[in-house]
């Protein structure tokens, strides 16, 4: 199994370069916000281990909101973020990037502080500017871009062939149908028209680290549990105090801001989401935030790594990142469906989880006991998340047209090719997927 990893390279945009940088990014796009996979600066399409990538210029459009808490907004300079999700380790991928897109990347990063186009070691600079997210979500750990493409091709091929077979022989004899399909796959593989690469061995180092993380975190929490138990009543008290006293901001996002965001949306079945805001002031909120993100990361890594995040089956990748010395938070995700349906999914299916995480951020609707209300205050929630959303200059997804549900189905189809079903009912179910 090849585990996924992510990179997030951040650098301040040089004073006066914002407009040029935006123009440069626009030149990489085919349609608003969507990268041309073969664009001259970075031909994303040639990196066969890259799932999704984006360039975002992080601006603090909502920085003034923290004034409601009696806190002076911290200065924030527009910051370029280049993030992506890949198969395998970051170092190898960055090497590949340098090899195939050095001049393009240099051109882009030359708009940033501390980067000069001439005499810069690009690889070292990117590594130095790469930061770790506090929590990552991968829809299916181990599913590679290559596997996705191979399985999609398998599905297409089988779908066409099955239709032909059914037209000729009918759909009644499922065992005979399966046999025909399996022989067909073998033949296509032999002819080189289909490939089903076996998974690569899981890197040993990753395995060990993963296992240590898997048992380590619960052990630490167990070890600290007497302390946590003692803290609990004080935590609850303080939490309720804050929840009652913290200002709630109902500010409708402007139509101009909305138009800037929606022009990039709904061109395909998957959309991107980038959002940036302030962490609520005070140590209590920060520690709560960090602890919840730690748990989120743990659950995403060890439990929700097989196609669903609680009840959500539309997110490909997501990252939560604390920035500006823990004063600000950046969240980026890749989701299926329209923005409205993404938000409704959030509210109705995992409102509790969203509350847990984002109630620690400025502008989030008031929660009760950290999991209640919050996102269920529909208008307030929808306003705040749109208000804090920022446009994504360039976004790339290696498999347009495919949703998370498609990917899971294609994997099940492939599984059926490789592992024989034991009874007619299972064969029927497999055939019904195609």
């Amino acid at each position, binding site marked *: 199994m090849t585990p996924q990893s992510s990179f997030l390279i951040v650098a301040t945009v040089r004073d006066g370069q914002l407009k040029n940088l935006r123009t440069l990014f626009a030149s990489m796009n085919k349609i608003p916000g969507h990268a041309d996979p073969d664009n001259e600066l970075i031909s994303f399409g040639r990196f066969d281990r890259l799932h999704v990538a984006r360039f975002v210029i992080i601006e603090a459009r909502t920085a003034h909101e923290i004034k409601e808490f009696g806190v002076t907004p911290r200065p924030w300079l527009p910051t370029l973020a280049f993030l992506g999700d890949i198969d395998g380790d970051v170092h190898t991928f960055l090497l590949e990037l340098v090899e195939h897109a050095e001049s393009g990347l240099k051109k882009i990063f030359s708009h940033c502080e501390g980067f000069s186009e001439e005499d810069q070691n690009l690889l070292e600079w990117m590594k130095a500017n790469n930061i770790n997210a506090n929590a990552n979500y991968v829809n299916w750990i181990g599913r590679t871009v290559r596997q996705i493409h191979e399985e999609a091709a398998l599905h297409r091929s089988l779908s066409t062939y099955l239709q032909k077979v059914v037209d000729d022989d009918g759909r009644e004899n499922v065992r005979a149908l399966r046999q025909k399909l399996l022989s067909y796959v073998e033949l296509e593989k032999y002819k080189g028209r289909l490939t089903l690469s076996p998974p690569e061995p899981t890197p040993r180092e990753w395995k060990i680290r993963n296992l240590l993380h898997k048992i380590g975190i619960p052990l630490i929490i167990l070890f600290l549990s007497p302390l946590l138990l003692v803290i609990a009543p004080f935590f609850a008290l303080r939490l309720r105090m804050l929840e009652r006293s913290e200002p709630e901001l*109902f500010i409708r996002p402007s139509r101009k801001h909305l138009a800037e965001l929606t022009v990039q949306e709904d*061109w395909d079945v998957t959309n991107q989401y980038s959002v940036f805001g302030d962490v609520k002031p005070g140590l209590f909120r920060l520690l709560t935030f960090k602890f919840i993100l730690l748990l989120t990361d743990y659950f995403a890594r060890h439990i929700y790594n097989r196609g669903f995040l609680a009840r959500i089956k539309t997110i490909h990748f997501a990252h939560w990142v604390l920035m500006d010395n823990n004063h600000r938070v950046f969240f980026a995700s890749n989701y299926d469906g*329209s923005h409205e349906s993404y938000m409704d999914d959030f509210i109705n299916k995992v409102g509790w989880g969203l509350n847990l995480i984002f109630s620690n951020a400025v502008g989030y609707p008031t929660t009760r006991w950290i999991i209640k209300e919050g996102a269920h205050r529909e208008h307030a929630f929808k306003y705040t998340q749109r208000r804090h959303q920022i446009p994504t200059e360039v976004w790339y997804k290696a498999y347009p047209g495919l949703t998370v549900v498609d990917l899971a189905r294609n994997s099940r189809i492939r599984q059926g090719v490789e592992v024989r079903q034991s009874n007619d009912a299972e064969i029927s179910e497999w055939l019904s997927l195609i």
Partner: protein
Amino acid sequence: MKKSSDFEFDDLQGLLRFGYGKLTDTCFMLLNIANVDLAKQWLNTVPINSAITKDPPPATAVQIAFSVEGLRALGLKESVVDGFSDEFIVGMAGDESRSRRLGDVGRNAPQRWKWGGNAAQVPHVLLLLYARKGNIEAWRKTVEGEHFSGAFLLLEELPTLYIGDIESFGFHDGISQPTIDWTQRQSTDIHERDSFSNLLAVGEMVLGYPNEYGQYTARPLIDPRKDKLATLLPNANNDPAWKDFGRNGTYLVLRHLGQDVAGFWQFLDKVSDHVPQKREQLAAAMLGRERNGTPLIAERIPGIPREDHWNDFTFDQDPNGNHCPLGAHIRRSNPRTGDLPPGVNGFISRLIKILGFGQRPDEDLVASSRFHRLLRRGRSYGPALAPEDAIKPDAPASERGLQFICLVANISRQFEFVQNAWTMNSKFNGVQEERDPLLGNREPLMSGEGTDHFNCPGQSGPMQKTSHLPQFVTTHGGGYFFMPGLRALKYISALPANGSDSHHDEDQEPDTKSYSQFSDSAATH
């Protein structure tokens, strides 16, 4: 608990409560305001039907709704207009991103619409007249009165024609409708709505009341201390210091949809090898009901009256679409899902479901239906054409279709969501390469993947595929309107003559607000 008779039905336009089905003849007019003063005079006298029950029921009815341009033309202050939702203010065709979401691309693109396709063409007023058979012309004369032609410019008289209880393709129509919970007896709490209920909070259809989230949808509120005229208006329930311009009003979504009836039946006939029975079966599978309205699901749910059994079912017992295909029209437009997937019977199983465990990979893909319901009030147009005649090569050609109307309190969460996430979505509920078999456009995805299939999952293995569906329904026009309560209508017709912001006395403080800008306003659960 309130009695139904306590509700302010006298301030509601009747269409929110009645479909006026007995009034078979209709005249739907799109108007521009030609003379503001005359228009207001006319508005002041037009006998708009309220939602009060009458015995005998009325023999005629008139209802009215305004686009944002219409409200502006009548002098509604921009600060009041700003209290409306963005969808209403921008309009159905006012933004390409919205058109993309609604599937108004290709043949449906607003540039090709007969009306409403660009900002300059948005009609000001939608006037709906209803009368018994043969009486519509007389009723129209009565309603219009003397100064109508001076007050308004008739842009378009939308065709409508009564062809019985069916829509143009020949299916029994208008069966699935939410029942509005006028007495507010059903809880909207997320812990009490695990399974589907057809009963719907008033606030989902009428502004000024709690919606399915137990909250008040944003709408224009006016400070009566600043605007004396606003004393005409009802108080805002959640904030009595303010007057509620939206209360007892609703948004009206109108879509002028052309239906290619001959094309539909001829295609079905062809792919069914000209066997009438197979043709009917495929048609029923596409709709999810037989032509007489019988749903393809036999199962019933408790709590809904027997006589309403056509509407008395969910798809819980048919998760794979073996009886009613996943992509069938009625399953897309109202999936009848509850807040949780079926199978919750206690605290533990509830927790397991909430955390997302114990589910098949293709389960729980559809949102909870109660937040996405529409109150439909459309009328068909064009002469009836039976399938038996439609399949003949010399089928009488004629414009046929539907003036689709729905009433909602939140255009984006209700109409636009249903249209986008359910009807036009080629990935709805995990289906493959298909949009709504009746309503969908057939535009391919960016990746080139087709969307012109229709699949019937079968119990025995492979799906039954129908390929290369032509587009059967084309958008010819559309718009978002606001259908005010009767007191709000009085307010509109009493607005000062010389238009916007004239009596705005240079005050620094805003004299209006959109409800949700204020933090004290969230309803408690």
